[in-house]
């Protein structure tokens, strides 16, 4: 909690983006920001490397499974960095893969649980790797449904990002037909560069495989002072997330990001901090909010000097009266 310029108590929200933010060499670059980040990443690597063929920090080797772990690890490291600087959040929201990082940071998942369930998840997603693709659209759910109805396609909504921003997933031919129609209607869209697709009912028959492949999972004790807002099952709490059923639902259910952001605003959010190496969720979150007075803080941004960007963020956070400690020099 912090006091805004009117002396009102406001909550801080940490946003954890999905896998679309992965960049080659991002962990190495993050390590140059601070020794605290390097330390967190090395601790995570000690755990994840026991379960993977490729080392977390060896970014010369790129494959979907390890890149997903790197995305989650980067967000956890940035979260720990901010917490080390004295900025802790009251509310945690993860978009798609980012929910794994949010669950780690709120005590629900251990590093071991993250790697085991993500590996099982990736095994299932790889089944349709060459069949599915995802696309972000700048149109409403109704307009998308109208196009589906007219064109006879069967794509699904994978994410509700804001009123006029959705992400869809479907087989290549369906997505291509939909994109052609969007082009004709002059509606913006862009393909999402991920391997295959997620948040689709196509994976529903693979529940047993997920349960078996993820092995024994010991869930943690959720932090009582950190609220996590589920983007999979609106209204689900931290305790609901302490089951493998929840994390299978995460694979087949759409992301209700818009609802989660609106819930945070209703709960008196005053500042949203994006914890990705590309602040994708911040731009989406802003589109959901009409209420004035909220601060939007990216941590780092593509094409910008990480340290300069973080210094700018420090300045913005300090300017609204939230005390943060500069730990760059450590």
């Amino acid at each position, binding site marked *: 909690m912090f006091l805004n310029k009117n002396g009102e108590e406001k909550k801080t929200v940490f946003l954890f983006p999905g896998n679309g933010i992965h960049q080659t060499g991002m962990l190495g670059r993050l390590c140059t920001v601070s020794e605290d980040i390097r330390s967190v990443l090395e601790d995570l690597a000690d755990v994840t490397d026991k379960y993977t063929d490729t080392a977390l920090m060896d970014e010369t080797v790129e494959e979907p499974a390890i890149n997903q772990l790197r995305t989650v690890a980067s967000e956890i490291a940035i979260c720990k960095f901010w917490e080390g600087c004295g900025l802790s959040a009251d509310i945690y929201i993860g978009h798609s893969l980012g929910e794994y990082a949010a669950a780690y940071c709120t005590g629900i998942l251990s590093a071991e649980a993250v790697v085991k369930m993500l590996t099982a998840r990736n095994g299932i997603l790889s089944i349709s790797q060459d069949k599915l693709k995802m696309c972000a659209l700048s149109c409403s759910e109704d307009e998308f449904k109208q196009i589906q109805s007219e064109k006879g396609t069967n794509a699904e909504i994978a994410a509700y990002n804001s009123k006029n921003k959705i992400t869809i997933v479907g087989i290549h031919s369906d997505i291509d037909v939909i994109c052609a129609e969007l082009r004709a209607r002059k509606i913006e869209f862009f393909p999402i560069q991920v391997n295959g697709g997620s948040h689709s009912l196509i994976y529903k028959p693979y529940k047993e495989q997920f349960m078996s492949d993820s092995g024994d999972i010991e869930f943690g004790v959720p932090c009582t002072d950190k609220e996590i807002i589920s983007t999979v099952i609106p209204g689900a709490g931290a305790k609901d997330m302490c089951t493998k059923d929840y994390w299978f639902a995460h694979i087949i259910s759409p992301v209700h990001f818009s609802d989660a952001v609106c819930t945070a605003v209703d709960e008196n959010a005053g500042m949203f901090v994006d914890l990705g190496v590309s602040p994708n969720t*911040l*731009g989406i979150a*802003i*589109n959901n909010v*009409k209420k*004035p007075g909220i601060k*939007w803080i*990216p941590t780092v941004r593509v094409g910008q000097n990480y340290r300069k960007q973080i210094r700018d963020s420090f*300045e*913005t956070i300090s300017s609204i009266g939230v005390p943060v400690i500069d730990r760059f020099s450590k």
Partner: protein
Amino acid sequence: MNLQDIKDVFKECKVTPEVEITEDVTLKELGVDSLDMAMIVYEINERVDKELEFEADQTVGEVLEYINNVSE
């Protein structure tokens, strides 16, 4: 709202323009990306207490004209 206000909005949002902010340049020419755009629109709306939307290919002058017309 005037040109200086727009410059202040950019500063508040920590957006460094690629060229000098004048009424003739578009937001795109200023190097505004989608996040910058979202933050700038939010900040302008907060200042004028409206729910306005802008496009990246609008010039700063067009943005100002729109803001001032709907704010009257």
